[in-house]
């Protein structure tokens, strides 16, 4: 017991004996720790934002279809949501909103110009609580209203390709749910710029009530799109939906955003691998910084350790002293580093990095997120702190052992 006190006392004094070196070591840890926490917070916040943007734009957190719809994307796969399914969704506190949709590939034309496009029949009112496309309508137009009929909003690039503007009348032709010819004249009420090139190039939206008529849906819909208040509860909501859909006379599929947008998941996984490599490099810089300074401090004190060993200090106690020094420094460093890292992350959470000036360049990569906030998590801070601490201790074992193995006679003679 007495021994520990002496060791701690000695270590504490040693730390303050060479303040400049201590502060250098401390700075290595502080900067390393803060940077790692901040980088991870930026990655997490950026990914969350990308998921949120993708989900909010059109996909929703969960979609329900007749099994086979998502693979084929054809109007043939449709279902009728029953009372139980609707009341399950209405009753669940995690569900922010849901909307019924009809999907159809169509040929859209104005006079002689024809293009392939995708028509989504949506519930204009409900869609507002599920997606945010209604906020992306360009000035001069508007989003659909519940009492609209043969009205359409379409993507900016599609409108440009067709050379149409608000107020123009276009025609669509397609195949209805029953295999008959589906054709309609539609009046453009709004043009949207979603930022997602695919939607902007191919997507058109008409009111669901009209889509039901045009495509002879007979009460069937292609998808039920669900938006959650708390994405963390996605699995519970999926389970609740599956409870109902398993009773269906034909198989349905309940899909979360990860299955709906696998390319987004892949992107995040790849980005994380990159971040881990970056973290690893930072950790190594910190570790070797510690190794270097502790090594130097041990060299400088060769004579002192020699004296200690010759008056009977155990080599293990010498090791303990050196390790205790590192622990003190790294604990303080981690504490300060974490505070700076968390502080920086919180600042960037409320003042996110804004790339919107480069939106078009970013859109080339299929990413429509331009604002990257930081989100700091407990796991991020704890893991970073723990790894830094363990690395600091591990890397000071070498110099500590060197000090313990000194030959007292030789060491005393060293200046």
């Amino acid at each position, binding site marked *: 017991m007495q021994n520990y006190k002496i060791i701690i006392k000695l270590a504490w004094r040693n730390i303050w004996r060479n303040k400049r070196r201590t502060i250098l070591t401390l700075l290595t840890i502080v900067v390393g720790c803060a940077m790692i926490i901040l980088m991870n917070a930026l990655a997490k916040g950026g990914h969350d934002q990308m998921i949120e943007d993708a989900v909010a734009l059109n996909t929703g957190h969960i979609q329900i279809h007749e099994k086979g719809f998502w693979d084929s994307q054809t109007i043939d796969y449709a279902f009728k949501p029953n009372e139980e399914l609707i009341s399950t969704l209405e009753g669940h506190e995690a569900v922010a909103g849901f909307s019924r949709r009809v999907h159809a590939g169509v040929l859209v034309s104005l006079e002689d110009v024809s293009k392939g496009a995708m028509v989504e029949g949506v519930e204009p009112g409900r869609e507002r609580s599920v997606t945010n496309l209604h906020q992306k309508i360009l000035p001069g137009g508007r989003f659909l209203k519940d009492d609209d009929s043969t009205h359409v909003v379409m993507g900016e690039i599609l409108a440009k390709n067709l050379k149409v503007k608000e107020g123009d009348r276009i*025609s669509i*032709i397609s*195949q209805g749910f029953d295999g008959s*010819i589906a054709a309609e*004249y539609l009046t453009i009420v709004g043009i949207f710029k979603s930022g997602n090139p695919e939607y902007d190039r191919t997507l058109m939206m008409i009111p669901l009530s009209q889509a039901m008529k045009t495509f002879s849906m007979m009460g069937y819909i292609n998808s039920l799109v669900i938006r959650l208040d708390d994405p963390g509860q996605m699995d519970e909501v999926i389970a609740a939906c599956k409870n109902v859909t398993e009773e269906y006379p034909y198989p349905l599929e309940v899909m979360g955003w990860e299955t709906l947008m696998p390319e987004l998941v892949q992107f995040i996984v790849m980005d994380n691998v990159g971040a881990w490599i970056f973290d690893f490099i930072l950790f190594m810089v910190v570790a070797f910084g510690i190794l270097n300074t502790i090594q130097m401090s041990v060299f400088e004190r060769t004579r002192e350790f020699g004296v200690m060993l010759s008056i009977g200090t155990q080599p293990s106690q010498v090791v303990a002293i050196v390790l205790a020094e590192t622990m003190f420094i790294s604990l303080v460093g981690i504490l300060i580093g974490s505070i700076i890292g968390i502080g920086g992350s919180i600042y960037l959470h409320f003042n996110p990095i804004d790339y919107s000036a480069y939106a078009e360049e970013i859109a080339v990569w299929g990413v429509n997120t331009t604002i990257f906030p930081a989100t700091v998590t407990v796991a991020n801070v704890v893991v970073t702190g723990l790894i830094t601490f363990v690395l600091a201790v591990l890397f000071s074992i070498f110099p500590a052992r060197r000090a313990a193995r000194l030959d007292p006679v030789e060491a005393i003679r060293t200046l």
Partner: protein
Amino acid sequence: MTRLTHAKITTIIAALMVMALTAPAFAISAKEIIKRAEEATRGDTSIAVYEITVKSRRWTRTMKMKSYESRAADKSMAEIYAPKKDAGNKFLLKGDNMWHYVPKLQKTIKIAPSMMLQSWMGSDFTNDDIVNMSSIVDDYNHTLLGTETIDGHECYKVQLKPKENAAVVWGKIIYYARTKDYLPVRQEFYNEHGVMKKVMTCSDFQVMDGRTIPTRYKMNTVRKKDQYTVMDINKIRFNVSIPSYIFTIQYLKRK
């Protein structure tokens, strides 16, 4: 030397005998079979009333169609007249071009080449199946593979491989035609990788307008087991003169 020559001659004679035995001695060329099949079922011109039944995964739908075809001029026009919902849809085919008149839009739409593989009226027939039928003689190289019995009919088995520059979607077609009258019994459509994609079977051989023809054409898409399309010929008249104004875009727009 003489012995060697002798051996050679023996080998050649043997080889010739084997070839004579294996190569079927057909009196008719492969191309001729297809030509006669086309001629027998379609004549130079024809006016026909079809009943088309589309069975899909979910529903079964029946349409009635009247078609005017001039095989000689490579033109045809078809009008759907039942059910009411689809009535008035008209299709004009001229060579490789196809137009669709949509009554609801009162508008004629040119079917772009990229849409040729899309389903025609929700059926198992593609637009291309409807248009390119006539090129089966000219756009392909024909090889007679032998005879086979299909559905109780003794048939010639003819392989059709597209000619180099032909605008054809299939990699290969196997055509079975009855040996007695060259009427088609079965056609198998393969993609460029040699995978069978569709099968058309012809049945219900009957005498119509003085000719024996198959009156039921059933198209199956191989991958989609629960759906098929059947075209029944209710009425047909061969080699009647069809006024040329029928094959015009202006005619499509007429009520």
